[in-house]
């Protein structure tokens, strides 16, 4: 099984490995996959006021293709807008890393991960604008 050089590069030198504070209101976290399936990806984005992704971090439990796919996505979204992040399609990952058919699910998972991170960030923003701080506290007490 010979993999593409780009895939091996991302696997051997993964970009943006790490953890952002998931409690931070400007951070969106996506955790997808399941240990029983052999893949779990956690992708995090930190977004500024202009809707630009200032930082992206990931950690992945999975095969080389899963690690490379998530590394690639963090590289792509860094410095780009939320709208761009939402537009990423798994086929683009497949193409960039030349994933073999049995590894296509890794790219699907990476797409799910970035989408989940964006959704998490968006949810946080809606809460912030809609719900006054006092109500939030009450909710927390309940």
């Amino acid at each position, binding site marked *: 099984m010979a993999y593409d050089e780009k895939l091996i590069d991302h*696997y051997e030198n993964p970009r943006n490995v790490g953890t952002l504070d998931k409690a931070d209101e400007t951070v969106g976290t996506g*955790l997808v*996959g*399941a*240990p029983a399936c052999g893949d*779990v990806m956690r992708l995090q984005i930190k977004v500024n006021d202009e809707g630009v992704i200032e930082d992206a971090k990931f950690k*992945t439990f999975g*095969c080389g293709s899963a690690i490379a796919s998530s590394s690639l996505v963090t590289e792509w979204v860094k410095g780009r807008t939320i709208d761009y992040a939402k537009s990423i399609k798994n086929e683009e990952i497949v193409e960039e890393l030349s994933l073999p058919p049995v590894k296509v699910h890794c790219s699907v998972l990476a797409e799910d991960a970035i989408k989940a991170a964006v959704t998490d960030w968006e949810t946080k923003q809606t809460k912030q604008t809609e719900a006054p701080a006092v109500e939030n506290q009450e909710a927390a007490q309940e």
Partner: protein
Amino acid sequence: MKTDLPIYLDNNATTPVDPEVFEAMAPYLQDKFGNAASRSHAYGWIAEEAVDYAREQVAKLIGARTQEIIWTSGATESDNMAIKGVARMYGMTDAEKVMIDALAKGYVDGTIPNAADILPGRFGRLDFESIAEKGAFEVFKSRGDHIITLPTEHKAILDSCKRIEKDGFRVTYVPVKANGLVDLEELEKAITEKTIIVSIMMGNNEIGVVQPVKEIGELCRKHKVLFHTDAVQAIGKIPVNVDEMNIDLMSLSGHKMYGPKGVGALYVRRRNPRVRVEALIDGGGHERGMRSGTLNVAGIVGMGKAAEVAHKKLEAEKARTTELRDKMWTRLQEELDELYLNGDEKERLPGNLNISFAYVEGEALMMAIKDCAVSSGSACTSASLEPSYVLRALGVGEDLAHTSIRFGIGRFTTEEEVDNAVELVIAKVKKLREISPLYEMAKEGVDLSTIEWAAH
């Protein structure tokens, strides 16, 4: 020739041909090319003599008589032959009994006067009058339809069993304990008067556990049931004696014992009891009619020599590979937490380690240690997307099954290679755990089993 090939630690998959073996084989690929079945000239006699000498060499390693060794193309064929050949020779399914019953009754009452012509020839000539009177189930009550095996067997056994299940035979898969060993009480409970054969592997190819073959043999003898064992992984690594272990049939492979690929053998007991096997492959009636086909003379010579060399080196190699294995396991445990050894720690093949490196996916680890040739029970290494069925049968969770790596230390593995491999594994597991969200969560005290994961 110097190559950049990785350190070979996959000796449970296959082994290199020993130089002594290669040397022994060479003439039989060149000048001594004769067909062992040619009785009319010296080319044939030389080949036949070589084949018979190899039979002696293999027989000696396992404490058998030379006529009890049947050459095959490999252990997959031997396993098929043992299961299907014995089932067809000794077994009779309920459906067959019902058919014979109906034919006998029809013959006696005159509605099926040509019953003898309708009856498939393999049942021979039957006494329809007596069958009609007593019933086929009574007449053939000694002919069973039941086979016992383990869920952790090699696919050659499991798939052969599935095949004959379709013909109406019944198969019981006796569960194994968490350490991979069979529970002898459970095994005994599974034996019925309809059981024909018990097939239990001596040393497991994935997790390396060595089953209590002697006790299983005794149990089978006590219940007058045939005992087959796939000893492919155990042969040459641990002492095997077919008489002391009450083995009736045993599968062997050339390439797992430093011989060539494409050759194997089936040991078939000739006395106490005399075991008969229906042939799977018909042709020139070679191998006492049990396995037709021109013999792979060079391969057979190689397997014979491999058996001789293994016999000679067994004790020393057993000690050496056990020591290397234990060293490897000790060192890994010194440096890494959350390692799980799959299969019993003591009752296992000398050179085998199967370890789950929790929170690190198996294929990713194999890619990281690409300077070592190993294999994994992770789904990602196969097209099936299911993790190892052997690990699952032990009750290993799917999450841990995905993290397993099998190391197989062999005759040509050096201590230096093991040392290098261990340090590489340690470094890479640490690195991959740093990028594993699961390891981070586990270290933070998150109970991963409480998270609702979305299966995909």
